[in-house]
């Protein structure tokens, strides 16, 4: 199977990223991945596993007191980790766009939404183009209410406004989208996904797409990374990940999917909680893993290549070694 992205120079290269919040909460530990130009990388995993923290760390928008460390965060050949905030701001917004999980916080509450749209999009797009694009994602009605403030639109409407601004204001090479369609129903979600994929087709926009909706992830992503307890435990092309998940957490997560469980059977939640997983020296999933080995509690497994994917699991490595 030809991988269209194989061998390409990565657009984004992240090596050994750590994010720590005061407490200290090690929210992200030793996360490494690449994103190729035009590639859509899905990021899934347990609530609290650090997906949002990865996105905010890449954009340099971590809250005060939070700490980021990495061996490399290279974006289009520039080391973002070494940039000063002022220079980072120039990259962010132009080449690197971000749709945060709480989109409402990125709109000014006292300025009409339509004025904010004009402000961000007016330089690049004519009024007709703005209307066409917004109508394409069902936002025509927003343009008809030019004086209304963010507070009087629905969450789903604001979410699409924020996506439109992030994706269209400049010509970003990479869009970090943190649960961008979580508040949208299926028909509107389809419209937004179509807009994002059109931008990829036309402009080669690459994306990091954080989502809990495994059906959407399996439909739009090229590769998928799985996070647990601050660790990236598995990353593989979408087909391999869904057909042959290797990490025991990935398996449990896929088994809990409503779409794969017959309606008359209860959903298979994973026993136990992820509480404290971020602090464990070994595999963060060890306390809940049905096949845990003694070594799992002591040592974090090293990343091992399995076909086109990479996995951090002692058992998966053993299976290959044997």
């Amino acid at each position: 199977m030809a991988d269209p992205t194989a061998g390409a120079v990565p657009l984004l290269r992240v090596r050994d990223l750590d994010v720590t919040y005061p407490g200290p909460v090690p929210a992200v530990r030793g996360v490494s991945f690449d994103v190729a130009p035009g590639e859509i990388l899905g990021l899934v995993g347990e609530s609290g596993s650090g997906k949002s923290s990865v996105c905010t760390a890449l954009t340099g928008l971590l809250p005060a007191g939070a700490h980021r460390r990495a061996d490399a965060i290279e974006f289009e050949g520039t080391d973002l980790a070494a940039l000063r905030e002022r220079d980072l701001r120039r990259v962010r917004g132009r080449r690197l766009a971000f749709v945060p999980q709480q989109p409402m916080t990125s709109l000014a509450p006292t300025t009409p939404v339509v004025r904010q749209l004009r402000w961000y999009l007016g330089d690049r797009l004519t009024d007709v183009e703005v209307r066409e694009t917004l109508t394409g994602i069902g936002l025509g009605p927003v343009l008809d209410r030019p004086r209304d403030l963010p507070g009087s639109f629905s969450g789903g409407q604001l979410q699409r406004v924020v996506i439109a601004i992030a994706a269209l204001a400049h010509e970003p090479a990479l869009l970090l989208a943190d649960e961008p369609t979580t508040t949208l129903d299926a028909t509107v979600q389809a419209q937004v996904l179509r807009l994002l994929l059109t931008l990829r087709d036309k402009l080669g926009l690459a994306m990091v797409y954080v989502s809990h909706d495994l059906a959407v992830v399996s439909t739009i992503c090229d590769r998928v990374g799985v996070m647990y307890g601050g660790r990236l435990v598995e990353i593989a092309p979408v087909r391999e990940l869904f057909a042959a998940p290797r990490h025991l957490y990935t398996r449990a997560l896929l088994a809990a999917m409503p779409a794969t469980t017959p309606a008359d059977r209860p959903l298979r939640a994973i026993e136990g909680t992820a509480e404290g997983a971020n602090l464990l020296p070994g595999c963060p999933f060890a306390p809940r893993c049905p096949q845990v080995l003694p070594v799992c509690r002591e040592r974090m497994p090293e990343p091992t290549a399995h076909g086109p994917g990479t996995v951090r699991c002692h058992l998966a490595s053993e299976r290959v070694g044997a």
Partner: protein
Amino acid sequence: MSALLDVRGLTRRFTLPRPFGRRTAPRVVHAVEDVSFEVAAGEVLAVVGESGCGKTTVARVLAGLDTATSGTVALAGRELTGGRTPADQRLIQLVTQNPRAAFNRRRTLRHALDQPLRVHGLGAGRAERDALVAEMVERVGLSTEHLDRLPGELSGGELARLVLARALLVRPRVLVLDEPTASLDASVKATVVDLLLRLRAESDLAIVVITHEIDIARRLADRAAVMYLGRVVELGPAASVLARPRHPYPRLLLASVPVPDPERIGPASAADFGAGAIGEVPSALDPPSGCAFHPRCALATEVCAERRPAREVLDDVEVACHHPG
């Protein structure tokens, strides 16, 4: 025997400020129009529909956080008015869509969960309240260690379960959940779904679940209502409405739900989402004439643009459509 929660002709319109210096008529958003449904004790009603179709507005009116323009909300035969007494306020609890906005950023979660108990005079003394809070926090799959943190220090999924815990603590009769599982991972989602199913079995709660996750609605709901542009277009047993709907809008909605497709070869493209005329979501400011769905409906005829279809009984469901399938 009437249902525990009885909603009749609920309408909520928002009047927008007039553009400066113009003598035009005030513009009105028709957020909710003539919505009626019942929910029995121990029953779960799912409300599904497009973003902006008025689901959250219905939820806010039910919980007494917003006042209906017209229509009534009755609980066990007694009408609850918009301005509610604290005692009435407790009876219908709303779990809001955005868990992060639900808590004060500067107070710990222990404070946030203790406060409603104090306001409603539940639990004698600090120790008993602490015990009630601890029990509830464990019931939603978290530990008391979470209680000493600030809301900003918890993930979205952790907060979503704490808002649920806070609502249940005051022992409501009706629980209204606005997108309770939207920001949760598949496993935590399963925990919340199982928790809600257990609550339904154990208690006499009437539960209204607003969700756009059809999978979740199918699992949780006994009955389902589909809203389009402020109106209920189909209402009936979940097994019918969410499997073989008769109205063209829920049919489009079900067809748009992505199904996992790991067999796909090569990168996804926009064309994969081209299925059907998805069309523009109309404006609640100026709803289309007749049936509001007619500009997007493949089955629309002349009568659809002229006359609004009434809700009619068709087998086990009620449908508002001139040409139901």
